[in-house]
């Protein structure tokens, strides 16, 4: 097991290239279009349970997903990570199948919406309990180390401002720090946890102040700004990959939807909505791409159309597919099957 290098920040040599930004932006766009569709399906009563969107958080999430390498890295998305999922390589159909409960999806109708994943492909399926994925990803990294497969690997997960108040967040981050694991944690501080504002959630001036208490590197970033995200999140992932230990990134932004689609988010004051955090990261990114000659408007419009098509197809396909059938359901929670045992009475033996 190789000794990791020390925790000091260092010039990692991370640079963003055109392709990174184009690819990230496409995932952002894809997530937005997909999520708008999910919202309509929910409102039309085609999705049961709930729909949880990442509107306004796409830049952060997609940057992370793009910076990670599917097949090598680990990404544990949370509630608002459609963009990151897409960027990491999750096919759209996994999403629509899960939301629509198709038995062909990765969760086979047993779990729904955002509670999906393919753990064996490096994407754990979140449980609802906030913070719980942190130690889990750390454990996956720990296992990689034991198997001699850690060098060059990064594990990442996202949480919200509210999730930082959980014991799981604390224990998980502390564990990762003690083990000096390449864990990247993004706190998407969207100013609210459901309806609860930051000032009822924590009392520090910036959540990034927590990093020092774990002995890890911390970053703040404007989560509405794709270029800033690409710089900071890219750098953090790169450093983790080089062995610099856990990285904590606090991305400041606003949720541009309700908590779920059942919620109108009316508790968010207009001043916040119209302020800097309330900028739509997709608009900002589009401007950045065009102004910096990374993509043209025409290209973007083409991407938009292509994505809209892909989303339509993914929805249509999932809608045609079989739903779970209680009569075919195995109704077993164990992979082990215990045989019925023979009579063991000594007198009969």
């Amino acid at each position, binding site marked *: 097991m190789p000794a990791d290098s020390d925790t000091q920040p260092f010039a990692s040599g991370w640079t963003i290239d055109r392709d990174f930004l184009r690819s990230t932006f496409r995932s952002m766009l894809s997530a937005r279009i997909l999520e708008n569709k999910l919202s309509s399906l929910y409102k039309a009563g085609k999705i049961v349970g709930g729909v949880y969107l990442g509107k306004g958080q796409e830049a952060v999430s997609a940057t992370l997903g793009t910076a990670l390498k599917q097949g090598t890295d680990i990404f544990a998305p949370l509630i608002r990570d459609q963009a990151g999922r897409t960027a990491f390589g999750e096919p759209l159909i996994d999403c629509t199948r899960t939301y629509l409960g198709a038995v062909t999806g990765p969760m086979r*109708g*047993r779990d729904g919406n955002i509670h999906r994943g393919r753990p064996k492909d490096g994407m754990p399926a979140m449980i609802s309990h906030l913070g719980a994925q942190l130690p889990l990803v750390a454990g996956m990294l720990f296992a990689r180390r034991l198997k001699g497969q850690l060098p060059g690997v990064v594990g990442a997960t996202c949480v919200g401002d509210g999730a930082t108040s959980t014991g799981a967040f604390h224990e998980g981050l502390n564990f990762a720090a003690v083990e000096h694991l390449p864990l990247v944690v993004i706190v998407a501080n969207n100013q609210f*946890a459901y309806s609860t504002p930051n000032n009822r959630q924590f009392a520090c001036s910036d959540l990034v102040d927590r990093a020092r208490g774990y002995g890890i590197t911390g970053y703040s970033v404007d989560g509405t700004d794709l270029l800033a995200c690409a710089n900071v999140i890219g750098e953090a992932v790169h450093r983790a990959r080089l062995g610099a230990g856990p990285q904590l990134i606090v991305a400041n932004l606003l949720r541009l939807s309700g908590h779920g689609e059942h919620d109108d988010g009316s508790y968010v004051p207009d001043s916040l909505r119209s302020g800097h955090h309330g900028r739509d990261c997709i608009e900002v990114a589009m401007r950045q791409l065009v102004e910096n000659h990374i993509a043209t408007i025409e290209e973007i419009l083409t991407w938009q159309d292509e994505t809209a098509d892909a989303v339509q197809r993914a929805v249509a396909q999932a809608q045609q597919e079989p739903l*779970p059938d209680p009569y075919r359901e195995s109704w077993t929670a164990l992979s082990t099957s215990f045989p019925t045992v023979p009579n063991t009475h000594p007198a009969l033996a």
Partner: protein
Amino acid sequence: MSVTYIDAIREAQEKLLRDDPRVFLYGQDIATFGGAFKATKGLADAFPGRVFDAPISEDAMIGMAVGAAIEGLRPIVEMQFADFSSIAFNQIVNQAATHYYRTGVPIPLTVRLPSGGTPGSGPFHSPSMDGIYAQYPGLIVLTPATVSDAYHMLIDGVALDDPVIYCEHKFLYRWLKSKSINGDHLPIGQARITRPGKHATVVAYSAMVHEAVRAADRLASDGWEIEVVDLRSVKPLDIDTVLASVARTGRLLAVGEAFPWGGVTAEVISRVTEEGFHLLDAPPLRLNAHDTPVPYHPKLWAAHRPTPESICEALRKLLSF
């Protein structure tokens, strides 16, 4: 005018805040927002400084409430979903539940658990934890099935000096309506004969009472008179009422929505067989949810828990002995 089950819970909290200065409400998103299910809607405004939003810290929420109870207050803590109490498990079962036995100082804390399944809620927003908490000495576990019980049992529960786990069923929240909030007001610890009968007794609680009544209604057309007993509280468990019913019917089916190993139905059956074996004319039966997490898809969910059909089937089996 009709009152829903969730209205009753809200009304009860309003009355408690009005009548008892020791009561305060604590939970995630319960103040301005009025709670994920609106059980505290308007209460923060009506009672300034008595209703508080909590950080996402279930363990601390209960720990703090135990502290407040030591100081003589009567906190009502809302868990956003019952399952999240798994994070507060230590504070509930080790701090709150043991406190009176250890120190002689009782903990008048009420924990509201939005419990049980609804379509599409999935593995983490559906379980019923009644049978988990009831195993621990020092806790009282209430499982109201009616609008009136939702109201009275919350008020009566908060009046108790001991920690109360109040399991409110999410499916009943808006589905269950009643003309009035005042039903027969039985004391905590007493079961109710919801539907009298003479051929078999179904013991149920929470949402399953309604499924049992439906099953009983169906069998009535075949001439069977099924008695339905609503436990109301699963700890304490009113075994006397159950025994009296079994004495009349000779047959017992226990129905619960929780997972099938152990739990309320096992406790009911083993208490009845121990204390009323001679009353039984047939083997007592049990019906619970399947032994898997509660599935997301409505079709799976509906088949995961007991239904009027499966209850009828069990009853027919019971009646055929």
